């Protein structure tokens, strides 16, 4: 079937542009990825790439034409086995296909699978993974709350889900008799017994693989890593078995499992015990990754993670376990995975953070407010799926964004956010995206060096002022 090539949008705000030059001529063979033409707007010139294969049958809009509206047919492509002359004479009655040009997608890039090869012409876009669909709306809580530590909120989440579903069980090093290395599983052995609160040997690779095998059979293990530093021993099973098997098996087998434990940087425990892993796991299709800060989110997201049919990496923070925040006083508080939350509204600059960095971002926002700069602080809560919609909506208002994370800068979450902002709200940015990250070194031990290596409130304040040109 002939394919109409439409005028692409170079940016979300573009409505029309000029065909500066046709690179391909009528009769030329076109392969996916070939440059077809150059188009200009008042902001930029860009090459238009072919999405489909075929032969350029007809140029509808000649070069030099200005004010060509987005989605106007500009050319017709004859498919394999079609006579280009006949197609041209026919006027190109067929399916329309936007040429690939500027990022026009309104979904986060992680949700789009690019396919290459001749079959590509058979469809407009592959169906996105199930997780790409919008998460369920978050419930508003207007009922009573209680002050609770993050530690107890996590424990309650597990206890409530274990009462609700007998296939849920907790396993890990020292989770039973010792009540958890960080006392998160306090009381669970007493309530549920050793068959459901299972002390494992120090054998991360072994028990992670065992738990995945149990999850294949429909059990719902919660695997506690004493810290995520030790999960590197188990990462083959997390990535190759837990994350990939549903896809590899054509959907036959799922892995309803939660891997949880303290992540990131604690205090004076040096390099091997201080690492932030969110970008490692968020890189992997098939995994969901959450990293809450507030106790209510810790509870609601852990309950959501346990109920989720997919493997979920649940990243906690040692320095946050003892903090107390209000938590809805109910045993049915669920926070949907994939939703960020604006924890402080503002209009001058957006600050996105997750886990403990939310605390620092809020402190930075206080200091900025004293200087007349109102920061909007977004708690990402979920790293994958990332709630791009909430970030984009904020940046459209503030036109400036700072990302804060304890992890290293290279290929970190801030890098992902920076790229996504360029793809999705380039025209709204009044300053380059700034990243506040952990320093690019293994974490030093000495107190003064450690402090320098971890993001501090003044770093966030400085970055926010930077993007606001203050």
């Amino acid at each position, binding site marked *: 079937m002939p394919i109409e090539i439409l005028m692409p949008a170079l940016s979300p705000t573009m409505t029309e542009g000029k065909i500066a030059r046709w690179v391909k001529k009528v009769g030329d063979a076109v392969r996916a990825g070939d440059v077809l033409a150059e188009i200009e707007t008042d902001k930029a010139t860009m090459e238009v790439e072919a999405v489909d294969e075929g032969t350029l049958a007809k140029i509808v809009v000649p070069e030099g034409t200005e004010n060509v509206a987005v989605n106007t047919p500009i050319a017709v492509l004859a498919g394999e086995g079609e006579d280009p002359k006949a197609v041209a004479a026919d006027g190109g009655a067929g399916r329309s296909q936007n040429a690939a040009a500027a990022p026009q997608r309104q979904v986060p890039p992680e949700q789009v699978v690019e396919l290459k090869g001749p079959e590509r012409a058979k469809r407009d876009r*592959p169906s996105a993974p199930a*997780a790409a669909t919008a998460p369920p709306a978050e419930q508003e809580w207007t009922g009573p709350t209680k002050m609770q530590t993050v530690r107890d909120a996590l424990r309650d989440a597990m206890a409530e889900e274990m009462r609700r579903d007998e296939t849920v069980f907790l396993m890990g090093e020292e989770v039973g008799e010792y009540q958890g290395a960080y006392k998160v599983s306090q009381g669970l052995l007493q309530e549920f017994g050793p068959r459901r609160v299972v002390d494992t040997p120090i*054998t991360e690779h072994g028990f992670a693989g065992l738990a995945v*095998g149990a999850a294949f059979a429909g059990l719902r293990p919660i695997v506690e890593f004493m810290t995520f530093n030790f999960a590197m021993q188990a990462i083959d099973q997390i990535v190759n078995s837990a994350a990939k098997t549903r896809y590899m098996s054509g959907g036959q087998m799922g892995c309803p499992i939660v891997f949880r434990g303290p992540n990131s940087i604690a205090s004076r425990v040096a390099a091997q015990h201080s690492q932030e892993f969110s970008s490692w796991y968020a890189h992997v299709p098939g995994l969901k990754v959450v990293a809450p800060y507030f106790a209510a989110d810790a509870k609601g997201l852990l309950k959501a993670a346990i109920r989720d049919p997919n493997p979920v990496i649940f990243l906690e923070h040692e320095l946050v376990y003892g903090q107390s925040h209000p938590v809805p006083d109910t045993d049915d508080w669920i926070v949907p995975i994939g939703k960020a939350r604006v924890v402080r509204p503002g209009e001058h600059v957006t600050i996105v953070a997750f886990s403990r960095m939310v605390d620092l971002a809020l402190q930075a926002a206080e200091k900025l407010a004293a200087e007349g700069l109102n920061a909007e602080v977004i708690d990402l809560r979920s790293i994958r799926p990332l709630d791009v919609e909430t970030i984009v909506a904020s940046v459209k208002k503030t036109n400036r964004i700072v990302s804060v994370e304890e992890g290293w800068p290279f290929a970190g979450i801030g890098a992902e956010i920076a790229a996504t902002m360029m793809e999705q709200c380039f025209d709204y940015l009044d300053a380059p995206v700034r990243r506040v990250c952990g320093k690019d070194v293994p974490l030093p031990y000495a107190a003064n060096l450690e402090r320098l290596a971890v993001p501090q409130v003044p770093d966030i304040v400085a970055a926010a002022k930077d993007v606001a040109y203050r």
Partner: protein
Amino acid sequence: MTKSSGATLRSEAPEPHREERDDLIAAHKTMLLVRGVEERLARLFADGEVPGFIHLSIGQEAIAAGVAAVLRREDTIASTHRGHGHALAKGVSLEGFFQEILGRATGVCRGRGGSMHVADMSVGMLGANGIVGAGIPLAVGSALAHQIRKTGGIAVAFFGDGSLAEGVLHESLNLSALWKLPVLFVCENNGWSEFSPTSKQFVANIVELGRAFGIDGERIDGNDVAAVMTAAGRHAAAARRGDGPRILECMTRRVRGHFEGDPQRYRNDTDAGPDADPIVRSQRRLLELGVGEQELARMQNEVESAITAAVEAARKAPLPDIADAAGDVYTRKAA
């Protein structure tokens, strides 16, 4: 079913004799199927019709056939990169198997997995595995699920001697012994760890290693399908009874290379000896038991035509729909 016990059975108990014969015929058919499939795969690979990595178990069929013969449908197995035999012996359909390896939408994994990831939950096949040793803890976890759910089932971890030095094997032996899990560890010892003799990679042996964990086991002739059935039956029954894990080390021979196309310049063990081929041995035994030449030829012909039909069907089967390429990365369905 060693020769001596077989002789006893023949002279004193005619009924078991017939059962033994039927079991051996069934196992022989499984071996013919696996051999036929893999010889066909070798041709399809040479012709360029099957891509990528194909690891054949030619010469090792008695292990898959003998172990699977004592398993029930609800029992689960985790396999290796050399896993075609395990899959077929456990009951993965021939059609679904070939459609998978030819990358078709109708394959058992809808063309997403291929040779190294054939899985079929409907018959308890948890999957071949492209990572050496990685299937072992999955089988142990499956055994935990059998234990918790009281299914009466057991799990089998198939692995090669190439995984003996993998830490996760040692971790899995420990966990399974610690929790008395119903798992049978089946080591297919073909002497080769990819391109090196295993003697250059592992100083212990798996049966002795198991003893260190308090796990009973034995080393057997893995090319004698009757011996495999007998030993697997005994150890599987023990695991099923709740006696905890068991180990079966099956000595065998890798006839082909590590993968198809491996020139094997590192190998000089070309003289296989008279008893190397499990199918030749099984055939000889069946002749002794009175199965006729014609009957054996008929079995072979049946397998060949089934394979030809399955390959033809796979060639005609549709490719996966591109619109579905991103499906099943995540699910919203409750597990």
